[in-house]
Structure formats: structure tokens, C-alpha cells
């Protein structure tokens, strides 16, 4: 498989708790094999990249990790506990939050309320939830827009609020689905800063799905490459950039360098 893995299944057991794992996950939609034995181990202190051409199974992976999609075989574990049969809200309250490429804010709720919806589910009082919501909004730089309806925000702000909202849940792991899509270079720079701060500041591991290679290479410590539902490489940004198989996977439509947008 040409996997330049530095984390094999053997080392997963050692890290013990504080880890989000996909073990040999297979997802089949009718005759289509969407995911073929995918293994991921996301630690709480790292930013892990998930890349691959369109249709590689990145979104399906996120859906499986959040309990939205049941795997055909294999399992997902949070801190060693299998999430098989859990509702998505239970997975969310157990520490896995996600964002969508389209921010999917609640348009009629205020920006602040959007974040409070999540922070009240992090446990604690309503007052504590409101305080946490305020802190996170300040961190993403949207505190001055807290009382506006979410529908009044521009695209970039919607993305930032969506990240704030996911973090408000006090997750152990956050899965970001193409947060840079449609952002200009300046916004991408801000995003890189923001994402890089997440593990240290919020104690939360990041799974970053992104087409923008510059963003991925600058933020992630490890990267997993999927192609056609199969993991084809895993390793450091440098190792991935020079990996022949990764280049081949991307050459079908574009070389890794050209995947810049």
C-alpha cells in the first residue's frame, strides 16, 4: 500500500485514552466501496490532515467518525470506547465536534445563540455556557457581531463562527471539513493561525480536511492521503509531498502543487 506510516495499529494501544480512532473502517454504499479499511488515530494534541482527490472518501470518513454514518465493518472508538449504535448527539457530547464546508449556521439565531446551542451541551450552568461562548467568539474575532443574526454574516465570518460553535461543545476532537474553501489568501492566513492555536488553547485535537495544500502543509504534523476510499500514504507533510504514489493519485486531475486554489 506504500504507507509511510509512523503510527501503526501497534502503537495505538500505547497512547491509551484521549484518542479518536477509526479501526479498519469499511463503508459500502450498494456496490460502491466508499471506504476501504481506513485506520486513523487522532491524538488530542495534534493537527492531523486528511487529503485526497474528490470522491476519495474524506467526507464519508468524517461522517463515520461523528457517528452519522455507520461503518459496514470496522469501528470507531473515542478513548477506547466503541461508538457503535450511538446517536450523533451522544457522540457529540462525548467529545467529537465537526464543521461543514457550508458553515450551516442556524440562520435565524443570533451569532451568540449559535455558539450557545453547543456550549450548553458542554455541561455546566447556562451562565458558564454563555461565558464560554463569549470567550470563543472573541477568539475567532467575531465578538462584535455576536448579536447579529447569523444570516447577516459574510462567508468568512460564517466559517469562523462555525469553528467557534464546534469548539463551544468543549470537544476533545474537532473535525474541520474544508474550512478554507472559498477563502482568499489573507483569510487563509488567519485560518492557519486559528487552527494552529486549537490544540494548545482549547485542548482539542484537529482533523483537517482540506484541498488547499498550503494550508494543510503549514498546519498539520501528520497527513493521511485517501484515494478511492483507500489510504495510500500517511506521514509528515514533507514525506507526503515527495511521495510518488500521492503524486500519481493527484495526477489524474492535477499535481499536488496545482491543487493549490
Amino acid at each position, binding site marked *: 500500500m506504500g504507507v509511510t506510516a509512523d503510527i501503526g495499529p501497534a502503537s495505538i494501544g500505547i497512547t491509551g485514552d484521549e484518542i479518536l480512532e477509526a479501526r479498519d473502517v469499511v463503508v459500502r454504499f450498494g456496490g460502491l466501496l466508499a471506504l476501504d479499511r481506513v485506520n486513523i488515530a487522532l491524538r488530542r494534541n495534534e493537527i492531523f490532515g486528511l487529503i485526497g482527490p474528490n470522491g476519495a472518501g474524506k467526507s464519508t470518513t468524517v461522517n463515520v467518525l461523528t457517528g452519522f454514518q455507520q461503518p459496514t465493518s470496522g469501528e470507531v472508538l473515542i478513548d477506547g470506547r466503541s461508538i457503535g449504535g450511538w*446517536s*450523533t448527539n451522544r457522540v457529540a457530547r462525548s467529545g467529537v465536534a465537526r464543521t461543514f464546508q457550508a458553515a*450551516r449556521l442556524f440562520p435565524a439565531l443570533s451569532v451568540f445563540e449559535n455558539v450557545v446551542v453547543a456550549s450548553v*451541551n458542554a455541561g455546566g450552568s447556562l451562565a458558564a455556557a454563555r461565558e464560554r461562548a463569549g470567550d470563543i467568539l472573541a477568539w475567532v474575532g467575531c465578538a462584535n457581531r455576536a448579536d447579529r443574526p447569523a444570516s447577516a454574516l459574510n462567508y468568512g465570518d460564517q466559517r469562523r463562527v462555525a469553528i467557534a*460553535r464546534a469548539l463551544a*461543545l468543549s470537544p476533545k476532537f474537532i473535525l474541520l471539513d474544508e474550512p478554507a474553501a472559498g477563502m482568499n489568501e489573507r483569510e487563509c492566513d488567519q485560518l492557519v493561525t486559528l487552527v494552529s492555536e486549537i490544540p494548545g488553547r482549547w485542548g482539542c485535537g484537529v482533523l483537517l480536511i482540506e484541498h488547499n495544500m498550503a494550508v494543510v502543509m503549514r498546519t498539520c504534523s501528520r497527513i493521511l492521503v485517501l484515494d478511492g476510499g483507500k489510504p495510500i500514504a500517511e506521514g509528515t507533510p514533507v514525506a507526503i509531498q515527495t511521495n510518488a504514489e500521492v503524486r500519481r493519485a493527484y495526477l489524474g486531475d492535477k499535481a499536488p502543487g496545482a491543487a493549490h486554489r
Partner: protein
Amino acid sequence: MQSLVDAAATGSLYALVALAIGLVFGVMRLINFAQADYITIGAYALIVPSASTVPTLFIGAWPMPLMVAAVALVVVLVALATERLAFRPLRGTDPSTLLVSSFALSFLFQQTIMLIFNSRPKSIEFGSALAAAVEIAGLRVPGVQLLTMATTIVAGTLLVFFLRYTALGVEIRAAAEDFTMAQLLGVRANRVIAVSFAISGLLGASVSLLLVVQTGTLDYRMGIMPVIYGFFATVIGGMGSLPAAALGGFLVGAASQLLQAWLPPDLRPFRDAFVFGFVIAVLLFRPEGLARPRAMRERV
């Protein structure tokens, strides 16, 4: 002038029904026609079960606060039970499946009530003191009309406060806009839906009591017309917006009352046809309802 007061009272009553229907539709995309039977059951809870047309009061004979609490409790329990037994197992299926389930449930309730109480309307002596007219600025307003308007204002205000300033309320509003996303943020689906049904039960109970005081009659289909009107109200208001649903309820109720007063006597029996025609006209010119329909907007 008198007919304007009548219109406002009827409008208020239908606004209550519309709030209940709109709330449940918001979180579940279900138009719950069994809401009609919540109203009917609340009314029948007042009497000792019998086939008599002049039944003895049961809960209805209790002191007022206790009586109101007991009827509310009965209807809330029925609403929660229907959610648990008839709708929760079907969650995630097609909205039309839920709709069929609500129709089936409604017929089941009606037939059961007929079986126990028989199908003839019953007249009861209940809250007749409230039917007495109060004189305000030369107008003679029945007390029950004032009570209806007051109930609607209080219930509406409480609901707004609840949805705006409590954790659960904000979660319900979020779930009404994007249920999947809300769940991914940890919102408990079961709790949010159950609370919405409980509130629809509370609103249903208040409608039962107001209706019985107003008419002094029990009928196993007494909840149907208010709920059909309430449903039209939510459609006219724009599905998915509660204030618009309440406004819609007020408008259809008021329109029906005014038509009753102003139509030539020969046409009065066909009053409902005029109201429904008005609903169709609204839908033709504003298919999305009077308010912008958030709930119906396409989801990304």
C-alpha cells in the same frame, strides 16, 4: 364593533392552536392532526365517563387551580405518550409517513372517545360565570372572550421568553432550523421533541378549557375545526415561524368571525368555504406564506 371583539377572541383561540401546531412542525416536520384530540381529550377529562348527554362533572368540579392543573397534566401526558408511541418510532422516515400516523392516531382517539362516551354531543354546566358579559366602554364583552385573549397573550409571551432565554428554548429553535446540525452539536433529539410535544399539550389543554367555557358542549370532534384552522394559520403565516403562525391564527379566526357577522344570512352556512377560499388565495399569491419560511428553505 361587537363583531370586532368576537373576531379578536376567535382569532386568539386559533392563534393558540397555531402555536402548538407550529412548534411541533418546527422540530419534527410533522403536522400533528392529533392535536385536535388533545383538545377533545382535555374537554372530556372534565366529566365522569358515561354515555349520558348531561354528564356529571369529575375534574370539572374541582377547585379552579386544581382543575386547570389536572386537565393540563392529562393532556400533556397524552401528548407525550403519542410522541413516544406513535411518532418516535417513525422518526427519520418520510414526513408523509408521520402525517399518516397522525391521521390514524386522530381517528383512533375519536373512535375510542365515541366508544366510551358515545357520539352524541354532551352539554355541561362549566365555568358559566365566565360566560357573563362584562361591560367595557359601552361594549358588552363576554368574560370568556377576555379570558381567551388574555390566555393567548400570556401563553405567547411565556413561549417567546422560554424560546429566547432558556438553554432548552435556544436548542429547540436551533433544532427547528437544522435538526441534523443541532444533534451534531450535542442537542438531544428526544428531549427537544418531547418538550415541544409537552408544550403543544399545554396549549391544547388551554384551548379545551376555553372552548368548553365558551360553548358548554362536548363533542368527540370538537378539536377538529380549531386544528384545521390552526393548520391553515400556520400555512398562511409561513410554516416554521411561530410569530407568523400566531398571526396567521389570529387572521383566520378573525376572518371567520367577521364573515359570520357580515355575510348575507343565506351564505352564512358556507362561511368556512369562504375562509378556505381565502387560504387558497393566499397560497396562490404567496406560496411561501406571509412570513419568510425558514423551515422550508432548502438545506445545504
